[in-house]
Structure formats: C-alpha cells, structure tokens
C-alpha cells in the first residue's frame, strides 16, 4: 500500500471531479483504484468472484454517495478499504438467510480481509501462474508485469493484435480456472 501522506493535487482534482459525477473521473478511479479494491474484496470473500463483484458495485455506490475532495493518498486508500469492507459485509448479509449467515459468521468471524487472507490470495495467484504453460505465462507477464502494449507484444511475436487479444483472453480464462481451484483448496480461517 502506498503510504505517501503528502498532499496530492492530482487526487484532490480526481475526487473533486468524482463528486461532480463526471464520467471520465469515475473511469479514471475505476482504472487506478478499482483493481486494488477488487483484490481486497476477493481476498475477503475467500476467492468468490461473484460476491466480490457485487460488493464492489455496492462499494462504488457508497463512494458515490459520500465522496468528498481528498488530497491525502493514505487517507483516501484507508477510506476506500473501510467502505469496501462495509459493502462486503452488507452484501453477505443480504445474500444469506439469518441462520445461514450466523453459521457462516461462526466459521469466519471477521469481515475484514486479514493480511493472511490477502496473502493467501496472492500466493494462490502466484501458484496458478506458475502452473500455466510457459508461453501462456510469458504472455501474461509481458502484458501485466512488463506492461507491454498489445501491439508491442504482437510485433514482437509476429502476430496480429487481434490474435494477441484472443490469446490473452484464453490465458486469463485458464488462469481463472486454476485460481478458482487453488482458492477452493485453500483452508479458510
């Protein structure tokens, strides 16, 4: 987590525009902060992507209701995490009947994604990546870890951009399957 507590004019401008409901600002927020929120929710939801996605939608709506101008990165990140956890808790509450919820609560008393849950998720991701065929893994690494553009990868491999997009889609689907399997086998608290 970025712990830069210095004032960030860019964040202040982003939150100001978000508070005005500008589509472009919300897309920027989605691009820059959404993945971290989703990861946090996915970890707290023990790898349930549907629960995480629904909680994320609720979190976005709460952020929309309460967003104010903020120029402190650390405070902003902390607030987002609190909102996300609260949204996940409420989403769970809605999804389960009372007794089911109580039973589940007994099994997992904490809503907050603990560090161990987050580490488990990342470990499962790394393990799933390691299980992928080398070519598939290299393709994902080029796109996500080396941050190569699709066109750049296509030029390097002598393929069309469309073909690289298709390979990436297949690679992500394969990773998703392995990740789901790994998360199911991961012992929860």
């Amino acid at each position: 987590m970025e712990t830069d507590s210095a004032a960030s004019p860019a964040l202040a401008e982003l939150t100001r525009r978000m508070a005005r409901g500008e589509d472009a600002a919300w897309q920027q927020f989605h691009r820059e902060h959404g993945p971290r929120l989703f990861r946090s929710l996915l970890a707290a939801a023990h790898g349930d992507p549907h629960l995480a996605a629904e909680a994320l939608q609720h979190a976005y709506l709460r952020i929309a209701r309460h967003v104010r101008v903020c120029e402190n990165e650390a405070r902003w990140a902390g607030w987002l995490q609190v909102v996300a956890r609260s949204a996940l808790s409420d989403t769970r509450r809605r999804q389960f009947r009372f007794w089911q919820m109580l039973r589940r609560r007994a099994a997992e008393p904490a809503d907050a994604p603990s560090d161990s849950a987050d580490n488990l998720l990342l470990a499962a991701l790394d393990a799933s990546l390691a299980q992928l065929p080398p070519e598939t893994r290299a393709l994902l690494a080029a796109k996500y870890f080396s941050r190569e553009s699709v066109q750049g990868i296509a030029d390097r491999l002598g393929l069309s951009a469309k073909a690289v997009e298709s390979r990436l889609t297949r690679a992500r689907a394969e990773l998703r399957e392995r990740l789901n399997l790994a998360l199911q086998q991961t012992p929860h608290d």
Partner: protein
Amino acid sequence: MTERPSSSDRDRLLADTYHDDWTTGPARALAAHAAYTVRRRRTLRRLATAATAIALLASSAWWFALPQRSVVPVASHAREAALAAPKTAAATNAAATRGYEIISDAELMSYLQDQSVIVFPDANGRPQVVWLIGG
C-alpha cells in the same frame, strides 16, 4: 518470472482475470453507474434546495401581502381625555400656555350636564363636540 511482480500489477491481472478487461469491459459499467448516481443525487439536492427557497419566498410574500389590521383606535375626545396623563403642575402650566386643557371623564360629564351639544365628524372622521348654548 525471476522478478516478483508488484502488487498493483497483480491487482490488475486479478481484475482482468475475473472481468475480461477491467477498463473497457463490463466492469466499466460499475463506474458509469456510480457517476450516474452522483449526478442524480446532485440534481435532486439542487431541486430540493430550489423548492425550499421558493416555498420560503412564497410564504414570506403571502405573510407581508396580508391586509394589515388598523391599529388606530376610534376614540372620542372623552376617551382620549381618559387616556391622557394625570394632571401635574407642569401639565397645568403647559395647558395655560397652549390655550386648552385636558380634563377627566367626570369633569366632562359635569360640564355637559343639562347642556345641549352636537357631535359631528370632522374631515378626519374624528368626532367634534360643539356646545349649542354657551355655558
């Protein structure tokens, strides 16, 4: 992958893994919906503020436009006399210099006993008392 990828890189990979393309795919609708929610809330808040202001202005205008009740009493000279300040030495001296005197109801009644008078309204609607026979 000898170098461990950064946390944000893995965040992005996870997001894309479960949402195809985080930025341009279906997940984009999450942000669009949130932006729409903010705009709708702002519009509703502005409408509510405007409606409240209009209601306040209308109620103020109605209040001030009400016909004001007359507060000027129609009082006779006797009534005015009764309401007058009690006589004092200073008041007596003032009466001597201004040429008339304010008297009490009892004094007026004693003056009017067995006297003929006529009462008529003047230009301002105030009753004027005139002695028909000099006393």
